[in-house]
């Protein structure tokens, strides 16, 4: 109780000095969290595909601009059969269902990907199926695909990503496996007042029986396939496979996972690589500032603490009181940065500027807060160490 009382008194007394420190700390924490948030927003796109992209395999389709014919697909599989290794072939499916509320486009992704999706939700969870934000379909609503009932368990935020493996790009990275979706804008030119059709994302296992029944009759397969090698390949086998694909380049369009993965990793780490030097610089300056503020503050409170000592406080009491006051500084900065982040997220601005705040934000912030606190304690310790109570009593307090 007395520690809180005297610590708080010291905090109030030095508040003007602390303001600089609080501002610096809050700014760093904010920058740190925004950096992590932007890293998260990129990493979340990579995560579901990482399991494939880090293996041998290809992003592949039959050549030709239009929807591949049966024959073309057969040819594709034939080529894959001649490759060394065992392969899993993954495709997405799509369909459109009509409900009372209107049309709903379905994006059916395989379960391994669905289970790793962590694109932020406005509400609900990923347990069954998620829809893009719109007014027509909401949490708990159901639609039917054939004889299967699909329930909406989660709603994505405005400005979100929908998995789609039909985009091919010469600079293929993981972002090309998604479309950006906004409830009022769409790549396709809309007529006045028209809204884009909402999209539901659901796991393949939920509708496997319908796919088996209705493929090409209401349910369509993506043109592209992810061909994932499930066995380990030798360098020779890899070369052999590369040769086979090259020989068939008239029939197929393909890109090896290794290429996509490399670009994806660059994409994911780019955000950090850009901000880390800035954050390091700012942190160094700020930590220098914190050291100064902290040592000035310790010196300024020295006389008052010595007064407490004369009245029966121990050196330990003095240190605790100092620590309480430093702790308050760090806490206030933390509260300010959390408040700013909260304001950002409440307005949904985090999505529009591509921030995803997750557990690692909490972790890094906590580590930061603790290290700053430890630094302040080391500074106090060093300043105190050399001083006798007598010299503290005559030191200029205020």
């Amino acid at each position: 109780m007395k520690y809180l009382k005297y610590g708080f008194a010291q905090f109030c007394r030095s508040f003007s000095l602390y303001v600089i420190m609080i501002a610096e700390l809050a700014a760093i924490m904010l920058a740190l969290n925004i950096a992590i948030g932007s890293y998260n927003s990129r990493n979340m796109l990579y995560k579901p595909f990482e399991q494939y992209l880090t293996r041998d395999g290809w992003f592949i389709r039959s050549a030709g601009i239009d929807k591949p014919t049966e024959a073309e697909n057969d040819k594709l599989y034939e080529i894959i059969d001649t490759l060394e290794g065992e392969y899993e072939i993954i495709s997405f499916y799509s369909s459109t269902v009509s409900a009372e509320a209107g049309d709903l486009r379905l994006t059916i992704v395989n379960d391994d990907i669905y289970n790793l999706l962590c694109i932020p939700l406005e509400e609900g969870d990923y347990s069954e199926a998620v829809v893009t934000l719109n007014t027509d379909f909401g949490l708990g609503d159901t639609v039917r695909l054939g004889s299967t009932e699909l329930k909406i368990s989660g709603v994505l935020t405005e400005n979100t990503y929908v998995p789609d493996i039909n985009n091919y790009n010469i600079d293929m990275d993981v972002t090309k496996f998604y479309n950006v979706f906004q409830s009022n804008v769409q790549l396709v030119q809309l007529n006045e007042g028209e809204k884009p059709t909402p999209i539901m994302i659901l796991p393949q296992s939920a509708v496997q029986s319908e796919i088996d029944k209705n493929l090409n009759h209401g349910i369509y397969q993506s043109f592209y396939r992810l061909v994932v090698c499930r066995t380990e390949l030798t360098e020779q086998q890899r070369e052999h496979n590369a040769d086979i694909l090259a020989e068939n380049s008239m029939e197929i369009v393909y890109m090896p996972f290794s290429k996509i993965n490399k670009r994806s990793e660059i994409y994911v780490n780019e955000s950090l690589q850009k901000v880390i030097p800035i954050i390091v610089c700012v942190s160094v300056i700020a930590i220098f500032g914190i050291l100064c503020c902290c040592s000035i503050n310790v010196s300024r409170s020295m006389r008052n603490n010595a007064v407490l000592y004369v009245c029966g406080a121990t050196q330990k009491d003095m240190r605790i009181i100092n620590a309480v006051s430093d702790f308050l500084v760090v806490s206030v900065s933390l509260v300010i940065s959390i408040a700013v982040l909260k304001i950002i997220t409440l307005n949904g601005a985090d999505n529009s500027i591509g921030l995803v705040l997750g557990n690692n934000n909490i972790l890094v912030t906590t580590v930061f807060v603790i290290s700053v606190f430890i630094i302040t304690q080391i500074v106090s310790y060093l300043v105190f160490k050399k001083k006798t109570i007598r010299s503290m009593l005559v030191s200029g307090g205020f």
Partner: protein
Amino acid sequence: MIKLTNIQKVYNPRKANEFEALKGVSCEIEDGELVAIIGKSGAGKSTLLHILACIDSYQSGEYVIDDITVKKLSEKKYARIRNEKVGMVMQDFALVEDFTALENVMIPLSFSKKKIKNKKQKALDALKQVGIEELAKKPCNKLSGGQKQRVAIARAIVNEPSMILADEPTGALDSKTGEEIMELFKKLNREEGRTVIIVTHDPKIAEQCDRIIEISDGEIVKNAG
């Protein structure tokens, strides 16, 4: 009772600026005495007082207060002696300036290890004793020098110590106010039987004490009633 035997104090031992401030000081002060310590500037008066107040340590000799030998005690025991046995009054008052008079007087109570029931009342009583009850709520930086010194005295006596140590308590005050403060010390000594030890430059103050101890160059050169 206080007993000092051959106390030696060296500042910055074994360094270039080593300085022997007390060169074997011995004396006894009985309970209830009113003692003045005088001497030239730099003689070692404050040094002695700080040792008595357990604020500073000493190299050799022995200091016994109420049968406790003050040497190599734990942090906590030192703090407890400061808290319970001595009340310290300084020339520059040593108040927490932005605290109110009452808050300042409460400090020793906050750090007391004893169970004290009504701390606030106790602090108010101490302020009443020094005659500034009505200033309890006033921040100390709004008080005059004399009033500040009264707050400091109230703080020194609030835990009912057996010994009050004052380092030039009237040094920063005009002579009339100094006189009033001295009256207060005399009252505490006569009426409550507390031991009062006052370091002073002022012969008029020293004259009013039972005994005068004169220090010169770290040694007691005169010790007489």
